[in-house]
């Protein structure tokens, strides 16, 4: 998922710390380094050993200081080396304005990725400032004044609601020192103002240890592990379909969700169970709260024979490796086989869904569903991945009234007298409701609506005696309309005049005249009637 690393380059980042590295021979070397170098170190170790081979994350690097001092140092990339390279030289600028930086980062995210969900901003700053530092104090005060817009306070309630449900961007902060409670409140406040959701603050040094300004490599490692487990982690889960199982990595993690009807908080279960299948043309892009990529898990082992992706090559390899008599080859072969075996169902599902243009309906938890479909990934090569769309818990998709009331084809359309089941795509039942765009209603609100209906009717009269049915259908429509809109006196009068005129001017075929005369009589009767009576040919 797109992540922006937002790095504070204000003056405060030039503050020095002693940094202790332990050599292999247990000799500790103390270096006096600036905060910005520390940040560089944190990012460097964060970037190494993330799940880089899978290229899950796409990361951009932005430096910020004052309101207008914002610089994109690295555009979104999946190459972690580029990030590490760019972070080596951190400049120092004067000012500090966090809010404008976050606003910028949000805009940057939407420019690049649009309204995607699960975007992240990771702010590297040292929000804590020493009390004896008057310059910084005043900068913070300034930024406070700048940041808080009084007009917005009024709409706070309303915005809270929307920001909770709609905010797509998570912000976390990485600080050198643990921020004081007021600093923390300020960070939360800024987050709220920029309509992001506040997720966490990480820090290297505890605040209470005033004198100890030594930072060790272990401290950095601790923070890195935390950040990684929160942000970069994948969700290992089991996909189950009857007796078939496959283990997969779900990325990003499925977040817990609230079941609206009961207000209950649901956790995603470790097992995604396939409940059945729905054709893509039936599920029709059902709306999801989040999208996740599902990847098969491949075990990487040290002795490296050419690693086949799939069982196909297995037997070929087993025959070729049978000549090598080492025990290691044998053992790696078995592991290999196993990791492949675990993925067989993944690939089977992938290919089948792709061929059938279908989606698997899975349950994430009780009353919580999602759909897995196959998506093509590379333009040139034919390679696909499974994508999981997680729905809102409960029955929240208007055209699927209830997930539990979906039945398998074999039972909904059972084959007649014991024959083989033959699948044929069926239409989903249409909710019996008269919609104005599926049925014709007499809407005469606009001038041309009325005109069109009248035109149809009058033209049909000219065609008589052909298409009598159409003429009568139009007649009934017009007459009913006349009753509904309280128009009958005037309308019938005019129509009678019109028809008489048409007959006189020979616009109506001789054979059609009797139909028209019948209609004139019918209209005569209707105008004195209390209620609308449908015209039927026999009534003439």
């Amino acid at each position, binding site marked *: 998922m797109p992540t922006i690393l937002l790095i504070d380059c204000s003056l405060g980042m030039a503050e020095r710390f002693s940094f202790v590295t332990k050599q292999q021979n247990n000799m500790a070397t103390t270096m006096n380094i600036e905060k910005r170098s520390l940040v560089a170190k944190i990012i460097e170790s964060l970037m190494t050993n993330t799940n880089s081979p899978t290229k899950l994350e796409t990361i951009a690097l932005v430096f910020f200081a004052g309101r207008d001092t914002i610089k994109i140092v690295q555009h979104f990339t999946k190459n972690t080396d580029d990030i590490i390279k760019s972070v080596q030289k951190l400049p120092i600028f004067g000012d500090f304005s966090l809010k404008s930086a976050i606003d910028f980062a949000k805009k940057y995210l939407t420019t690049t990725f649009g309204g995607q969900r699960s975007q992240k901003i990771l702010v590297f700053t040292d929000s804590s400032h020493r009390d004896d530092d008057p310059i910084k104090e005043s900068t913070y005060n300034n930024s406070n004044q700048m940041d808080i817009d009084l007009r917005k306070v009024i709409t706070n309630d309303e915005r809270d609601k929307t920001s909770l449900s709609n905010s797509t961007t998570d912000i976390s902060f990485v600080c050198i020192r643990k921020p004081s409670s007021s600093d923390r409140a300020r960070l939360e406040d800024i987050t709220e103002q920029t309509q992001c959701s506040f997720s966490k603050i990480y820090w290297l040094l505890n605040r209470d240890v005033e004198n100890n300004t030594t930072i060790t490599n272990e401290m950095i490692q601790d923070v890195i592990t935390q950040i990684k487990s929160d942000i970069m982690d994948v969700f290992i889960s089991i996909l189950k379909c009857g007796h078939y199982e496959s283990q997969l990595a779900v990325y990003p993690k499925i977040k817990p969700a609230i079941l609206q009807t009961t207000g209950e908080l649901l956790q995603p279960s470790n097992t995604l169970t396939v409940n059945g*299948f729905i054709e893509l043309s039936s599920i029709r892009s059902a709306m999801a709260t989040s999208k996740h990529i599902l990847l098969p898990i491949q075990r990487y082992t040290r002795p490296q024979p050419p690693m086949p992706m799939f069982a196909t090559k297995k037997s070929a390899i087993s025959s070729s490796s049978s000549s090598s008599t080492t025990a290691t080859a044998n053992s790696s072969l078995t592991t290999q086989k196993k990791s492949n075996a675990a993925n067989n169902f993944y690939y089977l599902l992938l290919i089948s869904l792709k061929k059938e243009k279908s989606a698997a309906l899975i349950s994430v938890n009780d009353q919580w569903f999602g759909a897995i479909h196959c998506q093509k990934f590379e333009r040139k090569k034919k390679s696909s991945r499974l994508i999981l769309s997680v729905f809102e818990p409960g029955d929240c998709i208007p055209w699927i009234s209830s997930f539990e009331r979906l039945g398998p084809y*074999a039972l909904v359309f059972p084959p007649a007298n014991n024959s083989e089941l033959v699948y044929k795509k069926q239409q989903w039942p249409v909710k019996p409701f008269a*919609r104005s765009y599926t049925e014709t209603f007499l809407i005469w609100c606009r001038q041309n609506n009325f005109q069109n209906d009248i035109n149809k009717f009058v033209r049909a009269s000219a065609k008589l005696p052909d298409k009598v049915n159409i003429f009568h259908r139009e007649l009934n429509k017009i007459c009913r309309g006349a009753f509904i809109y309280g128009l009958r006196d005037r309308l019938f009068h005019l129509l009678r005049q019109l028809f008489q005129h048409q007959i006189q001017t020979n616009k109506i075929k001789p054979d059609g005249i009797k139909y028209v005369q019948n209609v004139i009589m019918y209209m005569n009767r209707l105008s004195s009637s209390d209620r609308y009576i449908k015209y039927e040919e026999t009534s003439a």
Partner: protein
Amino acid sequence: MDHQRNKAVLILDHSSFFARPSGVTFNVNVQNSDQQQQQDQVNNENTLGMKSLWTCIVECVLEYCRILFDIFEDDALITLIVTGIDQRDQSSCWNRYKNLSQCMDFFAGIQPPNERSLINDDDLLKHSLNEAITALCTRSKKQNIPNDLDYTNSGHIILFSTFNNKRIATIEKDAQTFHQSHNHMALEMTDFVPLTKCDLTLVDVRPLDQPIPTSNPEFNLITSILHRTLYYAQAGQMLFTRMLQILLKQHNLALTTVTGIPMKEDVASRSSLNYDVDIVHPAEVHHSLRERAPLKYWRQIKDDVETIVLKWSAFSYDPENYYDTYSAYRFSPLDVNSRESACLTNFLLSGKCVLLELGNIPNECAVNINEYGDENCFNTSENDLSSLTTTTTATNRLFSHMIISHNQELMIHAIAFGSNNPMSKIGPCYIVNDEKDNMSINDLEELMDEIDDDNLEKDLRVESFINIIRTTTLYPLETMTSGKIPIEDSLRLLERHTRRCPLLTNETILFNMPSPTNLLTSLILREKLSDDDVSKCLIALKYIDNMERNGEQLPVPNNFQYTTKIVTNKAKKDEAYRFLWREIEYFVRGYKETSDSHRHIYQNIVDRRKTDIENDSSIYQSNKIDFIFPTDETSSTSTMITKRDKNLQENNEKMNGRVWTEFNDIKQVVAANSLRDMWNRKQQEKRAPEFDGRAEYPPPRLIPLYVNLNSKTSLTNPIGIQPILTTNISEKI
């Protein structure tokens, strides 16, 4: 739509005033070609009619109802009241009009207002007002049980009449008194809900020739919960615009103009090829745009009503794509009977879907990378270059919404717009490495090599799985048999179909068998077997028996998993038959508990004594899953499963099966290829025929040959290696 919807009561004044002509004309003559029009000009006085004020109001009211019913369906809470027309059954206020045609029937039954005025018109209006407030306090279907939501009961009263200051004052006073008395009543009666918010909208309707004092609405707060708004409108277009404004405001709806819809038939006439359609939908649809930029960039004022203009995009009409959508709302075309709307709705109802495109994003709402970055940020590796270019061009093509029909309902979806998908370029699998050291780049590339789908397909039993997919493709059930949840039937079916079904083609002979043997695999899956079915199965078994006796070749797949290095043809064939019988036994045993007929078939197989029946573990190795866990990640979830996994391993160790371990042993030995191994292999070849007999060993079945092999494998492979045979997990949990 989980929150409660506002109720709406529309009161139409039926007094003599509305029998007056409105000044809006209509023509019954056909107006088509210019030539004829000139001719007809003479006759026009005979074909022109004038609508009454009443007609104009009814037109508007029905349009109001139409839009509400289209968008909210059963939730459109509408009550129509015509002064002086008694409707009595108050209890069913909110169920009275379930759809538009019922509303129309209501008006069809009402005589147009009389031209002679009645004395008590004002009293009738007062009575209707009382009726309206009673209706608002009556429970709707969703409110049938008293709960907390009772205190969010809000409603609108729209009164179409003619007003002067005195009359407004009386109406306000009356409304206040009725409201208060009803709320008092609601405290004592459970049938009533207190009205916590009420908007009284007065529409002063005038004929075209009478000017209106102001086009702006006048507001007045009568009490904190009772608000009055007064609109002036001339009949015709202006009344319609007011009605639309009221509708959008009261029900939080908004307009979108779909622009640039291509129309084929106009090619000949050389007129404009594109046309616009306005659609009405809940205002929430536009929220996704706000994330991007303020709405003002797309806003236009059309006939005094705001609309957001989005472009029709010919990008893709394929509903079989799965787009990233985050919300969906019903919509309805504004001018439903116009040719353009009909064309659009028919297109959508036929099953197509259309993406709507934003024009250009204003510069101030986007980040210009060139402005904020420098050369430095472009030192990207080759991989990212493509994504960089899409960013710059993507600003021109941004899809924000999708319009589609779902089971004949028109819906508008907000989609995650932005064509730069962060999910692209993600590796084909997630790599876990046990060892701490880094992987070499070569290995990584090998692992990350994109797998061609066609390559994958070769060995998988896709066809059979597609059959399972089809059997369990879900369809909504109208009627439910009591006590049965349909989706659980689907789960049961999936369980039954996958119970004994191999994933790979090279693991099975049984599933490759031609007719009539394939009947066996399909019939056994049924829950009930007729006598006919049973005999078919038995015939299939007999058929295999005959094949074996005649020494026919079996359809052994390429790269068959369990072939040992046996060279002679006869031994190979024998082995294949042994495997087949073993497979049949294993397959049918899985279903023998289904019914007596199943058991009967199973017994028949056992009686043939072709195979050893004591083994309980799966013979399809790839159906089992070996859990791999990332060692570098310390999430609680994974450690939990690891524990479970370990338990399983222990279990498996104890109940390791026999038959197929043997095969595996042989394979390992063969692979080693030492002199002793070669000798062993020969022995095995010789011994192959006696395999049958060994199966009849009395328990305990001793296999003295490879007793230690299990422990050896576990010694040489410390942690990560699972035993060769693991049991199907689902069977153990």
